């Protein structure tokens, strides 16, 4: 379980630049979120996440860069269930992608095909391998 350095609820002006980068890259207005939790309620992957999607949005809203250490951004499978449920019109999947990109653009690879057995490489279809690499590697 991750521990986060700053859990204060106030917005520190020093954190403005991180929030602005996320908003620019995602095209989403984070201030629209009022923490209703609908995105988390509909997400099929929460059991594999250390932070609920709505918490990720809250941390990004506060400009807390530690959110990039969360497993949630990597377990998101961009199924857009959150997007269709958000009553404030935020595409949460876009925010997850922006957060992933902020990490991937430092030449980070979350996964590697080297971890797969020859059997897995033989049976996995192209569509799985390509989409997996596209979302989770630099």
């Amino acid at each position, binding site marked *: 379980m991750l521990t986060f350095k700053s859990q204060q609820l106030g917005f520190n002006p020093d954190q403005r630049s991180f929030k602005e980068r996320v908003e620019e*890259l995602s095209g989403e207005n984070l201030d629209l979120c009022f923490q209703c939790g609908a995105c988390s309620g509909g997400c099929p992957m929460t059991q594999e996440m250390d932070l609920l999607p709505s918490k990720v949005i809250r941390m990004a809203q506060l400009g807390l860069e530690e959110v990039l250490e969360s497993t949630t951004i990597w377990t998101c499978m*961009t199924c857009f269930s959150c997007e269709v449920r958000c009553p404030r019109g935020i595409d949460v999947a876009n925010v997850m992608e*922006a957060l992933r990109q902020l990490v991937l653009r430092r030449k980070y690879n979350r996964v590697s095909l080297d971890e797969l057995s020859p059997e897995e490489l033989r049976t996995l279809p192209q569509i799985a391998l390509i989409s*997996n690499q596209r979302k989770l590697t630099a």
Partner: protein
Amino acid sequence: MIRLAYYPGCTLKDQAKGFEDSAHLVAGALGLELVELQRWTCCGTVHSLATDDVMHQLAPIRNLLRAQEMKGEGLVDDDRLVTLCAMCYNTLKRANSVFQEDEERREKIVEIMTKEEHQYQGRVKVVHLLEVLRGLGWQRVREAVKKPLEGLRVAPYYGCLLLRPRGVGLDDTDNPTIMENMVQALGGEVVDFPYKQKCCGSYQTVHMPETVSELAHRILSQAQEMGAELLVTACPLCEYNLGRMQDRIARRHPGFQPIPVIYFTQLMALAFGLGPGEAGFSPNTPDPTPLLEERGLLEG
């Protein structure tokens, strides 16, 4: 015959060959010819969501340009580009929207693609075969049926990218009916179940197969509880996750009964009396032939 440009995509030439073969059979029976795009490349499988991403729009836009050229050469009859795979549909359609609506990225894309003979004009319309069928009218489909699927209990499974995000999907996001209408036109019994729009686990299947098998189990067992004997899908990745994972599910959940997962075009071809197509059923699904034989849908 109406000639339509057709984009296959990577997996349709391999594991999902049966999807493509049956789609050709179905289209032919309805007076449509799917003309494969010349020099197509992978679409990228997923749409890049970052607002500054131009690079990953190039492959889909180049494919749309190929479709435009085919129209220009008189090889097809209109501006539509037909897809079968839900992920190709989503990726090509969204790249098209970026080109049409985002002026800044459009200018960059045009600037980069100077080696192309023509410039993409943004007029190709990306459609899914299901939309083409809906456009023809379900009555036309009904008339082509030779072997009604009487009593066959079919659960349509949509997954994510046929329906989401809002504005991109081909039907009502919350209450889709397009595949239900298709099953009814074929004379089958529609099994509605609450997980028909739940994600199957998508590309996380590569590194998180255990988690994905649990998602697949929820979807399959829900459909079975509602009485389904068969699932139909329009996505090769859903088909892999729901089909291939069943061995793993059976190991983790004693008592789980396998259930076949086939492409909607295969179901249509069977009802049209054309068999499942040359490539047959995929290696991922539990064998559907005992069920189909029992219902008399396989013999010529």
